[in-house]
C-alpha cells in the first residue's frame, strides 16, 4: 500500500516497536473462558508460531486480533494501531488467511483478487498489476478467468493467500495454512512463508503441526486452555526439557513383547512405538544404550537402527499441554512415565 499510505500512518508504523502487541486479551462465552488474559508481543519481520491443541484458543485469538470477534477484555495493537480504538487503521496493516479457504466460489480467481483490492480501496491500476503479479507468483495466472468453485483445495488455499497479500500488508495472519493439503501445496506454502518473511513481512501462524512450527518459526507461543504456557524460540524451548532425551532403536525382527521388555530396562522412563521403531525416553542415554545392547544380545535380536535423540518441540508441547497419544495403554506405549502429569487422551506423537 506504499502508493497511498498517509504520512501519519507511516510515522505510527515506524514508531511501533512491535508488529503485534497483545495485552490481557480475553474472550468469554458465558462461563467458559476461551482465551484467558493472554499477553505477548510479536517483533517486526518475525515468524511467530501459535501452537496449541484443538480448543486451546488459537483461532479465537486470531479472530480477535483480526476484528472478526470483539474481545471481552484487554486489547491488542497491530503495527501500533489499537484494534478496538483504531480498527480501520489496524486492519489496513493486515492480511488474513483463515483456517477455511473463504474464497468466493462463484467468482473467477481474477475477480476474487480484484474484489479484495476494492475492499482495500486500491486504485484500479495498482489493483490490476498486483493481482497479475500474485496470480503469476502462485502459478494461477493461466486459470485466472475460471470460477474458483472448480479449483482443488490446494489451489483455493493459494487463492486465499493471494487475497491476503493483495494490500501489501505489514502483518500476515495464517490460521492452519497447510492443514489438509497435499505435500506439494504444503511445500509451496512453507517456501512462500519464508520468502515473504525475508521481504520483511511479519507472519503470525497458528498450527497443529509442531514440526512445521519448529522449521519455520523464529519464536513460538504454546497456548493451552486459553492461557499462554510458554513463549520462546523453538531451540530454547527444547532446552527447557533437556531431561526428555531418548534413544530410538529398531530390530530386524522385533519380538512381540518388545514394548514390555524395553520398558523394564533400567533408566528407561517410557517406551513409545513409532512405526517399526521404539523410542526409549531416559535421563541417562549412555546407560540405556548399554542395556539395549544387552537386551538385544540376550534375546538374539539384530539391531538395525540406534539413534540418540534430543528433545523435540513436540516433547515441549506434550510436557506443557499434558496431551498424550490416543494409543496409550493400547500397546503403543509402556513405561514409568516422563515425570509429569499427562491427563488428556488426545494428540499425536511425531515420528522422529
Amino acid at each position: 500500500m506504499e502508493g497511498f499510505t498517509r504520512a501519519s500512518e507511516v510515522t505510527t508504523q515506524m514508531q511501533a516497536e512491535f508488529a503485534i502487541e497483545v495485552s490481557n486479551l480475553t474472550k468469554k462465552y458465558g462461563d467458559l473462558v476461551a482465551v484467558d488474559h493472554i499477553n505477548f508481543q510479536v517483533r517486526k519481520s518475525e515468524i511467530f508460531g501459535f501452537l496449541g491443541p484443538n480448543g486451546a484458543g488459537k483461532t479465537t485469538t486470531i479472530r480477535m486480533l483480526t476484528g472478526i470477534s470483539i474481545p471481552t477484555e484487554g486489547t491488542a495493537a497491530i503495527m501500533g494501531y489499537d484494534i478496538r480504538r483504531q480498527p480501520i487503521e489496524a486492519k489496513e496493516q493486515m492480511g488474513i488467511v483463515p483456517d477455511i479457504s473463504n474464497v468466493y466460489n462463484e467468482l473467477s480467481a481474477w475477480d476474487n483478487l480484484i474484489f479484495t483490492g476494492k475492499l482495500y480501496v486500491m486504485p484500479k491500476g495498482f489493483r490490476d498489476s498486483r493481482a497479475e503479479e500474485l496470480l503469476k507468483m502462485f502459478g494461477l495466472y493461466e486459470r485466472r478467468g475460471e470460477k474458483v468453485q472448480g479449483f482443488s483445495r490446494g489451489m483455493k488455499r493459494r487463492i486465499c493467500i493471494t487475497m491476503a497479500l493483495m494490500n501489501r500488508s505489514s502483518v500476515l495472519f495464517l490460521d492452519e495454512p497447510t492443514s489438509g493439503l497435499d505435500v506439494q501445496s504444503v511445500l509451496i506454502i512453507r517456501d512462500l512463508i519464508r520468502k515473504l518473511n525475508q521481504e520483511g513481512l511479519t507472519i503470525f501462524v497458528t498450527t497443529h503441526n509442531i514440526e512445521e512450527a519448529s522449521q519455520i518459526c523464529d519464536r513460538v507461543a504454546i497456548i493451552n486452555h486459553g492461557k499462554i504456557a510458554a513463549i520462546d524460540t523453538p531451540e530454547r524451548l527444547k532446552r527447557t526439557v533437556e531431561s526428555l532425551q531418548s534413544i530410538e532403536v529398531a530390530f530386524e525382527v522385533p519380538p512381540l513383547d518388545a514394548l514390555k521388555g524395553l520398558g523394564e530396562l533400567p533408566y528407561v522412563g517410557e517406551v513409545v512405538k513409532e512405526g517399526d521403531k521404539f523410542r526409549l525416553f531416559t535421563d541417562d542415554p549412555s546407560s540405556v544404550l548399554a542395556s539395549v545392547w544387552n537386551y538385544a544380545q540376550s534375546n538374539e535380536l539384530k539391531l538395525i537402527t540406534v539413534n540418540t535423540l534430543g528433545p523435540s518441540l513436540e516433547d515441549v508441547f506434550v510436557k506443557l499441554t499434558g496431551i498424550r497419544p490416543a494409543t496409550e495403554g493400547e500397546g503403543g506405549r509402556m513405561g514409568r512415565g516422563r515425570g509429569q502429569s499427562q491427563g488428556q487422551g488426545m494428540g499425536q506423537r511425531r515420528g522422529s
Partner: protein
Amino acid sequence: MKVHSSRLGREARVAWAIAVKDIRTYYTRPPSIMFGILFPFSLFLSFSIGRTAPLSVQIPVLIAQTLFFASSSIGPVVIPSERANQTFDRFLTSPVSLLSILLGKTLAGVIFGIGISVIPILIGVAFFGSQIANVGALVACMALSSLGFSAMGIMFASLPGQQPGQVMMPLNFVRIPLLFISGVYTPVRELPSWGQMGSMLSPLTHTIELARYALGGETFFGPLVNITILAVYTALFLFMGIRFHIMNQRKE
C-alpha cells in the same frame, strides 16, 4: 473536513463494491428467485383472481408486494450463505466500517427490489391503463420502501444461521401477517379503528398507500405521513441491524 469526505468516499466505494459483488453472486440463487419474485407474484395472483376490482386498481398492491418481498429477501439469502463459507468474515477483517458493509448489503436489496417492482409498473402502464399521476410519490415510494425493507432483511439476517431458510422462516413469520393489516386485502378505511392503528404501524401500509397515490388513487393517512413513517422505519431497521450484528461479533 477533507479527511472526513475522503473517508466517506472510501466507505461509499467499498459499500458499492460489496453491493455489486452481491448482485453478481446472489440474484440468481434459488432462494432469491423463490422468495423475492415468485412469492409476491403468486400471492398477488391468488389474491386477485376472481375479484371484481379491475387490475389497474390492483397494480399498486402488486408494486408494494414486490417491493416488500424482493427487497427484504436479499439480505437473508446473502448473509447466512456468506456466514456458512466464512466469506462474511472477509468484510469484518477489511478496513471498512460495519455500517458500510451493511449498507452495501442493503443496497443489493434495494436494487433487486426496485428492479423487480418496475415490472408491475410497466405491465400496469402498458396493458391496464395505469397512469403515473405523481412521479415524486412513486420515486419516494420505491426508494424509501426498498431501502426500509432491505434493511429489515439485513436486520433479520443477524439471526444466527448458516442457511437462508433459517432466516426466511422467522422473516416470513413477520412478513405474511403484515399483509393482513396493511390494506392489501381490505382497504384501511374499512378496517375497525384498532385495525387502522395497527395498519398505521405497518411499513407496508405506507408503501401501498404511496403506490396508490402515485398512480392517481387516494391515501388514507396522507403522503407526508407515509413518507415520514417509511423514513423512520428505514432508520430504525438500519440502526437495529448494526446493533444486532455488533452483538453477534461480541458472541463470536
